[in-house]
């Protein structure tokens, strides 16, 4: 009997883009963004300075401020703070569920956010990065602390493997940042947790 067998089975399964764990300081430094493929629906990525492409992020922190903006095209701008800095989170009319979730939250509170990073050019030429929110939910400190551990580990893993990946090489070329800086960031974030 002939035929493919288990080894020859095709990969035809939908792959969801993983949500990267990244500290605010590192995301803020990201300005390289690119698209893979020519299709209109091809995913876009932001290149993290520690050398990994990122189509989606998962962050946890403190919602410190939310502001409603716009009349016709109403949207929310929110600030979420982690131990290293601030994420800028947006939820617009294209994310109605996320917008309703933001509307119900009262800062300050711990939140978990899943969203897609976008790079904008500010009028003064600086690159700004914000997260287009897919979902934002209230969490407790226990989860926030797990996220800090998770993100510290992911950051250290990226620093350790950056030398061996094409994205790592590219990040080294494009960003003039010593990866040791992000090691220090991770260390400092960890020192804020309780033993």
């Amino acid at each position, binding site marked *: 009997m002939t035929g493919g067998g288990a080894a020859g089975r095709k990969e035809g399964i939908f792959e969801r883009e993983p949500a990267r764990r990244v500290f605010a300081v590192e995301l803020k430094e990201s300005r390289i963004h690119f698209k893979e493929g020519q299709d209109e629906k091809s995913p876009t990525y932001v290149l993290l300075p520690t050398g990994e492409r990122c189509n989606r992020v998962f962050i946890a922190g403190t919602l410190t401020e939310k502001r409603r903006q716009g009349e016709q095209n109403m949207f929310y701008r929110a600030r979420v703070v982690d131990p290293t800095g601030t994420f800028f989170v947006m939820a617009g009319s294209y994310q109605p569920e996320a917008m309703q979730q933001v509307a119900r939250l009262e800062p300050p509170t711990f939140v978990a956010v899943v969203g897609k990073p976008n790079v904008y050019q500010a009028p003064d030429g600086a690159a700004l990065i914000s997260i287009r929110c897919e979902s934002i939910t209230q969490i407790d400190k226990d989860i926030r602390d797990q996220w800090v551990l998770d993100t510290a580990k992911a950051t250290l893993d990226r620093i350790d493997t950056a030398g061996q990946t094409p994205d790592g090489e590219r990040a080294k070329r494009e960003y003039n940042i010593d990866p040791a800086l992000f*090691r220090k960031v991770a260390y400092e974030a960890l020192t804020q947790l309780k033993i």
Partner: protein
Amino acid sequence: MDISEAAERISLKITSHGHPADKASIESKLTRLVNEFGVPPAEAERTVLNELAREFSITTFQAAGGPGDQKTLGQVQNGEWVTVECKVVALTSAPSPSIAQAGILADNSGAMRFVVWARANAPALTAGKWYRFESAVVDQYKGMLSLKVHSGTTVTEIPHEGALKPAITPIRDLSPGVVCIRGKVVQEWEATHDRILQSGMIADETGGIRFVMWKEEGRERLNPGGVYTIFYATADEFNSRLSLTLNPATIVPEEGDIPVSTGNASFQGAFVHLAPGSGLIRRCPVEGCNRVLSRQNYCPVHEIQPQYHYDLRIKGWLDNGIETREILVQRGETERLVEMNLDQARELAENNPLGMDEVFMKFREALLGRYLACQGRVIENRMLVSACEILHYQPEQLADLLNRAGGSL
């Protein structure tokens, strides 16, 4: 198929009947059919052979160039002319008027499907008897070999001593074709079609495979948890995964239990997306259906079903930052994770203007952003979760990470 080989076969057959054969002209006819008219090579060969046969008034071919080598079923390959001696282990209904009989043949080396063409004028085969098939053709469809009995095939019943000893294949090693396995019914699934009697998963210690049994007279459902030896089931590939069809296999229940590969995987990550279809759902009440109804209580098979029953489930995605895994959590674990049972969910939906959406939102608030550790069976990147825990902050990880981050400061 090589055209000159086909031309050679045709000319041999013609000359064996004492007629002259012009190989060059046969070859050019074949080439024309194949290249200009896109006729499949095997069909072209048949066309040319028939044309010459009519020309010389040959009615039957005594397989030119010998009846093909005598082989066992385990040895034959796609495209070969062969002579085999084997037992008819099952007959199935002929799917088309051009087919006289179809079923499964076996010898000690293996088994495969067969088809007797109506035009073959072959004697009717009886299940359980042994036959010699001279000059039959082996072809392949969807990776599965099949023996074709045509007008050039000579079929004779032969006596046979001793019992047939089918080889049992470990489930992990299955490939498309007719197979024998011994396994345990580890899961029973909702029937996705009216004609399905039962579907589920059967496993041995090497792995598991989905199976389906179509409704047919005399077929009985397998007992979940039961161990069976299944002779001559058809393993075929659909959407690039194998599935076992139990008609017309012979199914023998076994005593006792066997170890099975649980196929259990575990995955940890953050819950990043709650998919539609989560929360409080309504299922079709028709026995064996159990499909999820749409908002209008519409079942894709049984239409409007106002007498639905409620269920709870979670469909969503776990994400560890590197990989994602779709998870499906049934009612038991769902109630534990969201700390809401079915009755509470119903009450919430009934007393709230948003109805079932309110339950969905409660689920979202309870789950999104949580770190979960799930265990279950993975089928095509989706995990059917049997156990799930909410993870908590672990200070010992902090010490390790501080060492790692601070090591080279």
